[in-house]
């Protein structure tokens, strides 16, 4: 094969679900040339020690990500809006199970 360009395939992101019903959690990435190979490589690289019962592989270029410059406009406005947290509100007396 040699070190030619694209000798390892494209990049895929791997998400593992530990148990049915739980969220799929990102655990890393890998190289593969097609979907089936990506899935098999994910199985070999990330679930060898019983880490999961289901897998997602997604082409890395299909993921749209925010950039570091977005931190201000995207996330900081939430910091001074404490009323968005349930703990902001006083629970009226007599209300149970909230």
């Amino acid at each position, binding site marked *: *094969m040699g070190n030619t360009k694209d*000798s390892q*395939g494209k990049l895929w992101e791997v998400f593992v679900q530990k148990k049915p019903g739980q969220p799929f959690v990102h655990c890393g990435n890998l*190289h*593969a040339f097609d979907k089936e*190979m990506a899935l*098999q*490589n994910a199985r070999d*690289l990330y679930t060898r020690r019983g880490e999961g019962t289901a897998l997602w592989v997604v082409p890395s270029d299909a993921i749209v990500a925010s950039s570091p410059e977005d931190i201000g406009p995207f996330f900081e406005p939430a910091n001074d809006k404490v009323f968005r947290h349930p703990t902001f509100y006083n629970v009226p007396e007599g209300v149970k199970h909230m």
Partner: protein
Amino acid sequence: MTKQEALFKYCLRLADTSLILAQRNGEWCGHGPFLEEDLALTNISLDLLGQANSIFQYASQVEGKGRTEDQLAFHRNEREFYNTLIVEQLNGDYAKTILRQFLCDAFDFYFYSELVKSKDETLSAIAAKSLKEITYHFRHSSSWVERLGDGTDESHNRIQNALNELWRFTGEMFEMNEVDSVLIKEGIAVDLAAIQTKWESKVKEILERATLKIPSTAFMQRGSREGKHTEHLGYILAEMQSLPRALPDAKW
């Protein structure tokens, strides 16, 4: 031939085949075409080594002469090995390694699916455990065969050459002798004639999808059932056995 002798030889045949294939694939460790595939193949080798280990342990128990699984693996000579000829063939390029794995996986898949029904409880339990691993190996190797066969001109030529070279070693995988007849009578061994048709139709189906042609030559190389091997086995054993033979009491 007593049932015990037959069972011992039967176990050696299965364990030796897994052991030598594991050893051969293991040669790719650190040399795979890319990181992910390097790990995939060494993973498969480790599965095969585990299967060999379980069957050697059982063989040791069946023989009852106090030889351990390590003694069976490392202190027998070439003519006492009963692995199929195909597994000892040189790795060649990755296409040849994958094609050999594919032909063996297809055999193992049908073989162990039947061995699960064996009246021998130990073999049946080992088969059930191995079958899950083998099902995955088969999926991995078949997808590579299709990918390479139906890929570029170069990948197609490489895997077609591999098929031309290796096909003649597939006949003896289904050969039966006294070992088989003694154990089939007891409901222990698998009737290889019965799985040959399944193997052929599945292999043909996948090779066709991969646009590969089965060579028309009728010649089939045989010999492993009598411990007769190609020149390659001696070299594998020399490498694999040198350490335990030089230092018989060495411990990890």
